[in-house]
């Protein structure tokens, strides 16, 4: 499994950035030879010194010393140069890949069906993928593997040097490091599993931290004095978390230390052996120094390999978070066979039934209705009746196989989503004010006109947002919220509503759907906006959800929904007569106004 992930990582990097990645591979390979060269040169230096004590032929010796030193220079400078270049290349690769991966993730989310967000695992996988992109695990996996490769080459080269001394030395080194290796492999897997099992706890801890410290919950926390309640919950959860972490790490500490000691003992024995042999005169001091250095080097390389194996293992697992996310397939819809539409002449629901993915309860049951171009339809009903869901189905955010939704007589499942979005302007209930400029916030309604100042100002005027602009004495290039601009304006709920409406007005589609467009507006503003809106949309089809039943005056037809079913449709008077529930609902509000 790891091999396939590794393979995917390598494929990804080499495909996206071939020049940089191959340069890095070459640089790292070259690096491998410097260590053994250095060992040999050290031996020669000591040998020279030893000979020079007893040698009388000084003239020749000086030149050869200088020559030796030049070789030293070549090796160290070469090593430094290649290392620096390598680091620079890796940093660049890291930056480039982060960008590429972020783009890929965003693209993937855009591609995937909206209903993916109803899967709780999906939240986890997006977050994991995002974190891992930020932490650069893809490039780290790549570099870990390369370093392993480099260390193996160095290992072989250094072993060849040590081989001249004794093959036993190599064997002992390797045997001593085996427990350490195995432990590291065990630890990597255990650590990973451990961290994964803690993801939901850490998310919960983060959430508790968030609701204790967020500005959004501040007033309520102050009033209910619930700070301490959340802090206690946090403490309890953290205690458990800490205990588990300490336990796990203590175990690793004990085992890791034991194995390190075993390795250390083995290495020291070899080193002492080398010195003894040298004391007996069987090898020169220069050779002894070289062999000792080689043994220590061997130790270091093996430690490095242990470390890099663990690192690579971790990084590859983390990288998997990204890779597997990018591999999620967008379900089922074959885009080539999609149809296109230019206007919307009619919208029809035929026996539509729907429930959210992974839920039991049906939110929409057997709904049927017909909307013709130019009609103004009010959708009325109690909370949770399914009104917003209806919109989401209409707009193609969710799909259903039970019943049909037809636009211009064609099933929406066969229409390219883009076309639907192009023809329907939406104003959602949740008011999103993006921390971008006003221009962008409004312009998102019709992205192709985002630089058309006139259109944007017109849309603002239609919804009444222009008064916000005038009051603040700002331009449409001003930022909303203070995230990216100190002079950004913070909008009230009512102002956000007007912004969202302006966005809907930017859109040139023939259908506008408004989900409670006036929930946060005061009576006067609501009146102004509704009157303005309906004056401006005479030829368009408008479908709106409202709780303020006085607004049905703007509608031609009303669809009354209860518990996911349509309990009545038609003109207001028809409904008053035909549906007791409707008239009951209506009179609850109207009753007090009419005496």
């Amino acid at each position, binding site marked *: 499994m790891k091999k396939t992930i590794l393979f995917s990582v390598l494929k990804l990097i080499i495909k996206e950035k071939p020049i940089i990645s191959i340069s890095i591979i070459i640089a790292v390979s070259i690096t491998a030879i410097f260590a053994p060269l250095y060992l040999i040169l050290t031996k020669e*230096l*000591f040998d020279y010194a*030893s000979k020079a*004590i007893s040698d009388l032929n000084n003239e020749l010796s000086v030149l050869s010393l200088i020559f030796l030193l030049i070789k030293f*220079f070549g090796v160290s400078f070469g090593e430094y*140069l290649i290392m620096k270049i390598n680091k620079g290349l890796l940093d660049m690769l890291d930056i480039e890949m982060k*960008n590429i991966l*972020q*783009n890929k993730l*965003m*693209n993937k*989310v*855009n591609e995937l069906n*909206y209903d993916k967000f109803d899967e709780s695992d999906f*939240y986890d996988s997006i977050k994991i993928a995002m974190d891992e992109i930020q932490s650069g695990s893809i490039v780290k996996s790549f570099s870990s593997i390369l370093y392993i490769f480099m260390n193996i080459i160095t290992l072989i080269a250094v072993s060849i040097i040590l081989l001249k001394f004794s093959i036993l030395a190599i064997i002992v080194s390797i045997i001593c490091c085996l427990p350490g290796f195995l432990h590291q492999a065990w630890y990597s897997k255990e650590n990973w599993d451990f961290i994964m099992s803690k993801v939901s706890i850490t*998310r*919960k801890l983060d959430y508790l931290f968030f609701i*204790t*410290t967020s*500005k959004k*919950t*501040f*007033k*309520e926390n102050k*009033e209910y004095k619930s700070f*301490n*309640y959340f802090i206690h919950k*946090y403490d309890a959860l953290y205690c458990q978390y800490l205990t588990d972490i300490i336990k796990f*790490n203590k175990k690793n500490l004990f085992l890791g*230390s034991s194995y390190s000691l075993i390795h*250390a003992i083995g290495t*020291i024995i070899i080193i002492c052996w080398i*010195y003894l042999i*040298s*004391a*007996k*005169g069987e090898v020169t001091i220069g050779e*002894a120094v070289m062999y000792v250095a080689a043994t220590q080097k061997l130790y270091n390389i093996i*430690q490095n390999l242990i470390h890099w194996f663990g690192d690579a293992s971790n990084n590859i697992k983390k990288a998997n978070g990204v890779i597997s996310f990018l591999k999620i397939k967008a379900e089922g819809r074959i885009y080539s066979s999609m149809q296109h539409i230019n206007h919307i002449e009619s919208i029809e629901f035929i026996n539509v039934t729907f429930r959210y993915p992974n839920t039991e309860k049906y939110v929409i049951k057997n709904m049927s209705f017909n909307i013709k171009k130019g009609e103004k339809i009010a959708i009325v*009903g*109690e*909370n949770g009746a399914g009104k917003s869901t209806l919109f989401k189905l209409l707009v193609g955010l969710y799909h259903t196989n039970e019943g049909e939704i037809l636009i211009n007589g064609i099933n929406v499942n066969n229409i390219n989503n883009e076309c639907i*979005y192009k023809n329907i302007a939406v104003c959602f*209930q949740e008011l999103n004010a*993006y921390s971008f400029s006003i221009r962008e916030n409004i312009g*998102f309604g019709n*992205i192709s006109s985002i630089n058309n100042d006139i259109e944007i100002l017109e849309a603002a005027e239609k919804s009444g947002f222009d008064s916000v602009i005038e009051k603040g004495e700002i331009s449409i290039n001003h930022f909303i919220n203070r*995230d*990216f601009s100190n002079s950004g304006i913070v909008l*009230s709920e009512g102002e956000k509503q007007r912004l969202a409406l302006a966005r809907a007005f930017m859109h040139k589609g023939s259908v506008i759907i408004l989900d409670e467009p006036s*929930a946060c507006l*005061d009576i*006067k503003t609501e009146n102004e906006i509704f009157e303005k809106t309906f004056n401006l949309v005479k030829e368009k089809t408008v479908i709106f959800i409202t*709780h303020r039943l006085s*607004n049905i005056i703007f509608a031609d037809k009303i669809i009354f929904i209860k518990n996911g079913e349509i309990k009545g449709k038609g003109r207001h*008077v028809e409904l*008053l007569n035909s549906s007791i529930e409707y008239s009951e*609902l209506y009179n*609850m509000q*109207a009753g007090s106004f009419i005496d």
Partner: protein
Amino acid sequence: MKKNKCDFIPKIKIYIKEIYKPIEMIWQEDKMIVLLLFVNSLVRKIYIPIIAFITKRIIEIIEIANSIGFSLELQNKIIILFVLLFIPFALNRLWWPVNTYTQAIATTKLTNSIKKKIMVKICDTSLCFFDEEECYNIYENCIKESNGKRILEILQNLLNFIATIIMFILLAFPMFIFNPILSILLILSAIPGVIIEKIFAKKIFLHETNNTLLSRMIKYIFELFSNKQSVKEIKVFRIYDYLEKKHSEKYKEYNQGIKKLMQKSLIISLPAFFILQIMTLIGYYFTVTKVTNGSINIGEMSFIITAIGSLTVSFITISDAFNRTFTSNLYVQNLYKFYNHGYIEEMQGEDVVHMENNEISFKNVWFKYPNAKEYTLKNICLTIKESEFIALVGLNGAGKTTIIKLLLRLYKPTEGEILYNGIDISSFSIDKWREIFSVCFQDFFDYSLSLKEAIGIGNVNKIDLLANIKQAAEFAGLANVIDGLPMGYDTPLSREFDNEGVELSKGQKSKIAIARAFMSDGQILLFDEPTASLDARAENDYFESLKKLIRNKTCLIITHRLTSIKSVDRILVLSNGEIVEDGNHEALMRNKGFYFQLYETQSEKYMKLAKEGKNEKNYTI
């Protein structure tokens, strides 16, 4: 030059202060870890000179053994040295596992410590803290970066610094004795590299600080793709391409600078290294010549060769560690600015004085938000008597919510005073004062906890009393919603943490907020437009429940919908921060003022609908 010297010392003092606080934090958190870290750093650095010294002795013995034979005496000496060699060798090998351990534990504990302190500080913070821009920035930065790793790094840098100095001294001493000039030249040759490092580090730091805005924007755009709400809009408005382009542009801009810096740094660092290497090799040459003419033996040569290399490296490390340690640590500064901010609510105060008929009065209250140009409330004079049911009415921005904030003492009046039974409310203890209210805010929060908790936090003391929670839920009209939930009150209210979670509609969420308010059981009810997302029936239910709950309580509701306004005792009309009308429905309608206009705007629609109905009826007949 002089200027730099003068700045230097006070700057160091400040940096020392900045280091002291986080280290104190770590020390209090876990003393063992600090000691472990210290010993670990020390061992890692001192290892080199000690091993070099022992190796020197061993080689000297080997030299002697080679010339006069490996006598028993020499064998004993060498064995002792072998044992001595083992100890630092083994200790050094333990560095890695110990480091892994300390990292994991210390980071966890520190992160928790930082977060806890933030949470505790927030408890005492007053609302006006968030109105100051600088404060808000500090707060935001703290929250975003509340990770213990940064603090741990500070300690590690300091320990690294100290340990490297010790190592340097252990190496420099013998080197100076060997040849002071060579030693000084070696150190000097390392200086260009050090200076270049410092310059580039500074440049990179500047680049990052100047570009935090860019990097935050990049992150913001990226994160829009993990949020269900924004993804919905991205799809429906088809703004993916736009966002992607923006993201790429910002990314390119941000990295343009970095790339250039990296390239420059590579090119300039080469000559510096060059100088260092040449000097090192001159050192080697000199050393070998000394061996040749018999001044030193090979053992000493081995020590000096090692020392030459390590001396320069440790010098570079010292300066690097110095830079890292004694540097302006924005992160720590920020954190402590937040911990020490003075926007505290005054917790002290008297008990609230209750009487037979309690009365709240606003005496010439003027209020404007900090840094605002205009007054939000102007000359409010108002008396609220016990058991009154008052509706506060007016357009958006008229100041209605502000009155509630002042009543709850989230803010203080700029001028004038608010009295309770004749006593200024600011003399009461804030906690006791807030207890008398039950509040439902307009911008209530949608908690991803269980239903029971989401309602129960209205009164944390009673959160485990299911009866109270049930009652609150019923009052708020949640009974039939709960019947539909298989897990009942334990149902999680979002799918963020649990696949069994349920996403309620906005209207249902409002009911939870109302239930919270009911839980808190105060004598004075303050409800701020909770019915904005409620349907007609739910709104009706809500008013009915409210009437049930009110009994003898005082109630102030802010409302836009005038539907049930006739059941209210008294209506206060707020316009542009002033109370323009005050009376019951009939009186105000007779007045034909602002209220009359508002009411008519609503009622005329219903009248029209009724008329249409009559016309239709006539027609069909």
